């Protein structure tokens, strides 16, 4: 018996939908094994995760809280990946959005009323993230520099910048030695849904953006250019499309969107700027999987971001209860992405078993 991998002649519709679900299931199986190896009952762990995320009103609200930045970042990344621009730096763009918003709230317009301040913070956050994304974008478009490396290096740089600010010039005077700024004035704090931490303006924005970006990709000229550039860059050039323009715009938008997520976190949840991991426990990276699992469709990203929001909440729950390190979420992400990738391949290829010829 020999195993061969061969291309499918037609895309199986059934497979396209069931493959992500199957991959997820397999991933959960492997993670269950890891739990078991660590001495934890997988069933207990999963039950705790599920209950933690969806079993109570608090859990559900926290899921929404975590889904919000994932959604905004995920939508932006879906756009970038569609053009084959590998923006791995969403985490850094998110942080820079947070920095920009903090600057506006504490230093530029601290006395402005909320109606002025909040929109300004969002605009500044978009700009901050956009500029941070623009740099790798221009380096790629003009100098052909690998955007995976450049955008990722910018994450580390952004992270250190935030550290520098919160330990240094922006350290809150009243907070001794703790790495955060002073609390934002009330006018810089986003309203929350009754009793929860859901900063609903950002959530509404996220849903709106998902729809907007979907329309952008499927129905506009720019979207057409993005899709052609991603599918066949040579044909795009032949058709007169400007590679530079496409890459730069796409990085601008996805960076800006990540920046908006950052604003949401500081204005909606923390009400101050803190050390980087306190603002984002890797939202920018998890968003990569959110986008990929949603097959780069902004509307599907709404669903996948809710799913991962739940996973993060559940993960927090068991982390505390079972004493697992913070990096465990990385493990989940890695395994899931791994299986999603494998599953996707099954839709395009099939494994054929053939009997070896007798001779």
């Amino acid at each position, binding site marked *: 018996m020999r195993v061969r991998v061969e291309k499918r002649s037609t895309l199986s519709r059934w497979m396209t939908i069931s493959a992500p679900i199957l991959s997820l299931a397999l991933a959960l199986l492997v993670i269950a094994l890891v739990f078991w190896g660590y001495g934890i009952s997988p069933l207990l762990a999963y039950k705790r995760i599920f209950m933690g995320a969806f079993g109570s009103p608090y859990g559900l609200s926290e899921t929404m809280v975590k889904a919000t930045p994932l959604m905004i970042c995920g939508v932006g990344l879906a756009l970038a990946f569609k053009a084959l621009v590998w923006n791995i730096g969403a985490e850094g763009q998110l942080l820079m959005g947070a920095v920009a918003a903090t600057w506006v709230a504490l230093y530029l317009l601290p006395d402005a009323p909320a109606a002025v301040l909040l929109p300004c913070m969002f605009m500044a956050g978009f700009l901050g993230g956009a500029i941070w994304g623009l740099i790798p974008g221009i380096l790629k478009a003009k100098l052909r520099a690998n955007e995976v490396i450049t955008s990722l290096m910018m994450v580390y740089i952004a992270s250190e910048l935030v550290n520098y600010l919160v330990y240094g010039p922006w350290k809150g005077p009243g907070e001794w030695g703790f790495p955060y700024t002073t609390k934002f004035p009330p006018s810089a704090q986003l309203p929350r849904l009754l009793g929860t931490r859901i900063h609903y303006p950002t959530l509404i924005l996220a849903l709106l953006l998902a729809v907007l970006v979907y329309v952008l990709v499927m129905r506009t*000229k720019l979207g*057409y250019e993005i*899709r052609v550039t991603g*599918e066949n860059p*040579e044909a795009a050039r*032949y058709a*007169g499309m*400007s590679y530079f323009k496409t890459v730069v715009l796409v990085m601008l938008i996805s960076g800006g969107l990540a920046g908006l997520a950052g604003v949401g976190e500081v204005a909606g949840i923390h009400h101050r700027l803190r050390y980087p991991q306190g603002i984002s426990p890797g939202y920018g990276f998890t968003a990569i999987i959110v986008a990929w699992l949603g097959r780069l469709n902004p509307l599907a990203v709404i669903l996948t971001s809710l799913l991962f929001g739940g996973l993060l909440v559940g993960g927090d729950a068991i982390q505390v209860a079972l004493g697992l390190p913070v990096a465990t979420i990385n493990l989940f992400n890695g395994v899931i992405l791994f299986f999603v990738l494998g599953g996707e391949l099954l839709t395009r290829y099939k494994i054929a078993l053939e009997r070896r*010829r007798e001779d």
Partner: protein
Amino acid sequence: MAERQGWGEVVVSMRGIVKRFPGVLANDHVDLEVRAGEIHALLGENGAGKTTLMNILYGIYQLDEGEIYVKGKRVTIRSPRDAIELGIGMVHQHFMLVYPHTVAENIVLGLSSADFLFPLRRVKGKITDFSERYGLKVSPEAKIWQLSAGEQQRVEIIKALYRGADLLILDEPTSMLAPGEVEDLFTTLRRMAEGGRAIVFITHKLDEVMAISDRVTVLRQGKAVATVEKSRTNKQDLTRMMVGREVLFLLPRKPVEKGVIVLEVEALHALNDKGLPALKDLSFTVHGGEILGIAGVAGNGQRELVEVITGLRQATKGKVILLGKDITNSSPREIIGRGVAHIPEERIRTGLVPNMSVAENLILKAYRSSPCSQRLFLNYAFIGQHAERLISDYEIVTPSKDAPAKLLSGGNIQKLILARETSEEPVLIVAAHPTYGLDVGATGRIRHLLLEQSARGAAILLVSEDLEEIMTMSDRIAVMFEGRIAGIVDTAKAGVEEIGAMMVGARKEQERGY
């Protein structure tokens, strides 16, 4: 020319070969028998299954049904390694060489008998030996990308000989060669056959079959139609076997009323991808309603010329003028906007977005302006209608307008591209190898479409390696050699020998006025 002595025993016998690919039966119970000392032509149109059959013999593809016998013994060939061990060598149409490496490194690759340490030392002497014996001159130290097509082919042949090939398969070996180089190749092949080797020569060119082969096997649509001795057949019979019907050979085209000058190229210079000069002081004009054919062996600057005119490559000096306006180094977008259509050499890689629908491919050039789009948004209702109209006008065979373009056959992809490029009534059409790899039916349709455009008044620049195509379609022919134009002739007055000579460097003599 003395007749070669009778051929020896059967070297390879293929029986009942069946090979299926998704959606197509490439080989349908084919039988083939090759003897030592013979040159056996495998003739058929594009898509008839010749290359597939030989790829099976060489182990690149696996047969689905059938048997192969080498020197009387039944064998299984699972990979090229097996084939090589059995004494079968293959020179592919698109050379399988590692371009940045040297000749010696290419020959040593995968050679089990080579030394592990410093493998090149011993190999170099043997290469020189082969060179002299068969007239295959190459320098072992040269890098492949520096060599001409003819020299690269010699490397391929030496590669096969080095591995002890008793049977040598050559796939469309003359497609990259100038007429003079073809003669050299034939001499080499005859010498090898006289030495006892068997040669299989895949081709779709009847002239070559009649010139070089001893026996011919004709394939049509996957089936082996007949095997005949060359001395007992002629071009007419072979054509009938190849195509299944009588085909009128295309008559040269009637001269056309020439319109204004549409395209003017003045002293054009450009560099290739390696930074070396590709175009040197090129000048010519094309009138409305005229077809100017660009003849020449591949690699003499034709590709760069097409790219400069369509804005995909920078010109370093000189001008490109379209209807009086200087468009030198304008962006592709501007050039498209001025009415220049481009039928690209690499259909799928450059001219198509395979995963997108036929309809979306059809608007690849027109999407920016109304009625395909309004300000920011695309008008999908119109795009759909537009697609339906073009599909019916140009007879594009597709499951639907929304089907992914990659499902279309080669001929229909080309029709899609032609539909897209010509439906907006361009003033200039740059067509690069428009019928390459298409079967006779599709080739005829594409040529017909181009002739229609010319009748409408468009200027056409036709680049092709198929000299027959150039001679039947063009009003004038410009021959390119090493980045320059060796000469421009009127088709009606030119002969193949003159053109062939220019293709290898002779310059056109001044007309003596007759």
